């Protein structure tokens, strides 16, 4: 019998809530109270997440965020700023010692990205892992990924771009020099793609989710069984949301 991991689907959460759920699952898994877990989720309202080491005010125009109703949060993972709008986001939480997870961090990025590459292939999109943390299709980025290891547990989360609005993204992200804004937008348009762009049609969230679910099952030779957050995880997530990811102290610390 195949090993069973938990599948979570949590749609339409705030930025702080989404990051709080990832951390709650990480804590529960590290204590042996939750199985390896793959979660698919969306963001409502749309949100910007920044990497652990980034400066919020240097990267993000908070006035524009407030005007457009875009949420923002600092991640516990490194990497860059991401505008989470029309995308499918995933996270995986699994013990560092699990036989399916390479101990080497770069290798483990490649392995987990393999699940997303399978998922994209299930949608009819050929893609490759591009170190450090991207997946590319037709030489353009279609997915960005970020991993942390805490409490002997791996958390990797990442995006699969369903559609992308580069102009909107750059109205929220600060650019080093206003004069190069147009050039930057055209450069990013050249470098980024989406499921919609590659396939030339819209793909529903549930179809994309199903393709990615299969992608994980194929990559890790497991069965994903839909489950729910436990009482402990819900409580942890509530606390992390309120006192950590929702706090000015955390989000503005750099």
């Amino acid at each position: 019998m195949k090993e069973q991991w938990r599948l979570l689907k949590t749609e339409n959460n705030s930025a702080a809530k989404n990051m709080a759920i990832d951390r709650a699952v990480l804590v529960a898994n590290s204590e042996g109270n939750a199985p390896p877990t793959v979660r698919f989720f969306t963001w409502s309202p749309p949100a910007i997440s920044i990497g652990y080491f980034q400066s919020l005010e240097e990267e993000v125009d908070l006035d524009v965020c407030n005007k457009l109703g875009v949420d923002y949060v600092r991640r516990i993972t490194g990497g860059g700023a991401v505008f989470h709008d029309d995308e499918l986001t995933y996270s995986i939480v699994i013990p560092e010692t699990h036989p399916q997870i390479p101990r080497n961090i770069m290798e483990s990025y490649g392995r987990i990205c393999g699940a997303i590459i399978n998922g994209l292939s299930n949608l009819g999109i050929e893609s490759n892992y591009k170190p450090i943390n991207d997946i590319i299709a037709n030489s353009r980025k279609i997915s960005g990924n970020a991993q942390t290891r805490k409490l002997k547990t791996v958390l990797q989360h990442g995006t699969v771009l369903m559609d992308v609005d580069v102009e909107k993204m750059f109205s929220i992200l600060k650019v080093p020099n206003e004069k190069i804004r147009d050039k930057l937008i055209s450069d990013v348009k050249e470098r980024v793609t989406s499921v919609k762009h590659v396939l030339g049609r819209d793909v529903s969230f549930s179809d994309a989710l199903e393709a990615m679910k299969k992608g994980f099952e194929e990559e890790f030779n497991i069965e994903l069984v839909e489950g729910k957050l436990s009482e402990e995880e819900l409580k942890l997530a509530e606390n992390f949301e309120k006192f950590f990811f929702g706090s000015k102290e955390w989000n503005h610390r750099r």
Partner: protein
Amino acid sequence: MQSKSVYKIPEGKLLKISLKHIDNRITEIQIMGDFFAYPEEAIEILEKKLKHSFLNRESLLKKINSVIKENNIEFIGLNAQGLTEGIMMCLK
């Protein structure tokens, strides 16, 4: 004095340094960017340990390497040379 630098690590990520210094010594430093460090919290240790360091390429590199070793820091998209370069660029 206060200065900043932005440095693209060769084959790595974008490093942004914010630096305060007096008499060629660091009084405050923030190491920012879209790189990865494991464990993440070690960056704060590194920032603390770099306080009072001389702004000299050789001694900075030595200091950074020793903090990396002491704290088992693993950088991805960043390295000691790149970090030293980013800090020294603040003086240009």
